[in-house]
């Protein structure tokens, strides 16, 4: 369905963009219908950038991204709109995803105006109510200002927004990292339910536990390079790349305490981000980057 083919991204930096900085190197993966793919990496590894490129909020510098075989960078006007009817995103900060001066219901009116203007009022109402119910909200919620709602509610509204459109791929960029522990699981569960209904999700996170919780496949990004990817149980159960391992080691567990040495090992995570090398198939459905 979605194919990310050897995509690289260069940002201009410095005055007048004299220099270019490559933040994504040759990223190549695929998302199948009904599949949840997690993009995992530390801060600055390029997760958001990949997500934004898929959403066409950032342009692709090299390579291409196709959806159902169509190169998304060629989309314009109506075809872009139709792309957005199939692919949507939810972002990290629920509070900043809503225009703070309007009531939250405005988002849905905009959706209707931009995408569903052909729908008659009744159909629209039922569709809206259904979507809201699916995320566990009442229509009354639409009449509130963003600051009057909790982060979890807002994220659910955004997911409902995607549901109204009946999309096929959702890019969820750290959508729970700003939520309280008590509410984040609600949102995660909701994503899980949607996946069951056949929605594909690209789940961006730096929290391995969360990635593990709902995803089918894991992609580990380090400084814009995919260092390891594969089925969730493979990558987590048998991490091959040192970077993946160090990430896993750093995850605190409730019930297992780090040993004294582990805790006080203040050495930096091995800087193994080298460009070059290539991904080889370690096992079926498990690719690892090796360097010659």
């Amino acid at each position: 369905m979605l194919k990310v083919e050897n995509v690289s991204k260069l940002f201009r930096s410095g005055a007048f963009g004299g220099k270019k900085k490559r933040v994504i190197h040759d990223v190549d993966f695929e998302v199948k219908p009904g599949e949840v793919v997690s993009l995992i990496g530390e801060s600055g590894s390029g997760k958001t950038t990949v997500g934004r490129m898929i959403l066409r909020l950032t342009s692709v510098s090299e390579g291409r991204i196709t959806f159902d075989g169509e190169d998304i960078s060629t989309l314009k006007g109506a075809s872009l709109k139709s792309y957005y009817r199939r692919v949507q995103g939810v972002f990290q900060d629920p509070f900043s995803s809503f225009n703070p001066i309007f009531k939250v219901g405005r988002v849905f009116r905009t959706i209707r105006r931009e995408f569903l203007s052909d729908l008659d009022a009744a159909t629209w109402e039922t569709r809206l109510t259904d979507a809201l119910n699916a995320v566990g909200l009442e229509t009354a919620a639409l009449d509130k200002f963003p600051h009057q709602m909790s982060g979890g509610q807002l994220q659910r509204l955004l997911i409902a927004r995607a549901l109204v459109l009946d999309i096929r791929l959702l890019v969820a960029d750290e959508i729970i990292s700003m939520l309280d522990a008590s509410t984040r699981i609600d949102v995660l569960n909701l994503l899980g339910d949607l996946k069951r209904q056949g929605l594909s999700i690209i789940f961006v996170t730096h929290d391995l536990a969360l990635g593990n919780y709902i995803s089918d496949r894991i992609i580990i990004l380090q400084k814009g390079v995919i260092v390891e990817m594969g089925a969730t149980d493979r990558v987590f159960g048998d991490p091959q790349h040192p970077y993946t391992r160090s990430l896993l080691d750093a995850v605190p567990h409730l019930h297992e305490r780090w040993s004294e040495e582990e805790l006080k090992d203040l050495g930096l995570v091995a800087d193994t981000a080298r460009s070059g090398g290539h991904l080889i198939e370690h096992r079926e459905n498990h690719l690892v980057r090796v360097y010659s």
Partner: protein
Amino acid sequence: MLAVSDLKIHYRTLAGAVKALDGVSFSVADGEIMGLAGESGCGKSTLGKALIRLEERMQYVGGQVVLDDKVLPIADDRAMNPYRFSEVSIVPQYAMSALNPTRRIGRMIDELLDARGLKGSTLRPELERRLAILGLTPDVLGMYPIELSGGMKQRVVMVLSTLLDPSLLIADEVTSALDVASQKKVAGALVEFRDRGYVKSMIVVTHDLAILAQVADSIMIMYAGKLAEKAPTRTIVEAPAHPYTRLLLGSLPEVGIRFEEQRLPGIKGRPPSLLSPPTGCRFRDRCPLAFGKCVEEPPFIEIAPGHQVACWKADAHAQG
């Protein structure tokens, strides 16, 4: 040894007083790292700030703070000053921007020490030694904050805050903005400092229970301006007595838990407004165990050594 009793701190707002701390009593032993956790807005930071410096809008309403047998005059900004830094110190949440951007770090530290009546130069070797422990070279002292990465700044702040070997250190959300790798480093540093005796005791504020489980000796859970539970880390993690603590722990996905296999429950509802909090147990609206008695406020009582809970049903549960 820190002993806080019935501390009440309110925020003055136009809409009325926000009762961010509404009668909080607990103690932290020497050498203890106490984790403080709870949902956003429950008053964690307020507690941390109250122990060192009240901001303009914070209003001291009542209670007492005793540190090493001395009563801290927390309501009196001037009287409090001599205690700051040397007795109580803080690693703020905003470590990234805590350093004056236009002063070289070393110079800033010297000026600060001089202003406190200490000689910057005599402390210099100790400063450099501690920086080295965290993997920083003395060069950083000659740099401007902007020349350091976020993690470096955070470590510098940690060293600076503990330079005078305070009795109590408050670390407010020092790991929250970091990814797992950096988080671990900071957590390690906290323990290291305690172990070396740079600080006697510590309050680590965070909403991330998993990290507390790694570093804290005891964990205190707050809910809506009140204490819910305090116990040794192991007890909290393995045998929490307060229903809120349990629900909170239950909603944490551990590596290995998968949605497909085990669907974790969340906690329904939202915490009450602190402007006019309900009487009685503040968690009762969301509590699965709530019963008639919950309209009365449960006392924060010790149900086992070092294990305090504020719940009418705590006893039953701890034993059951």
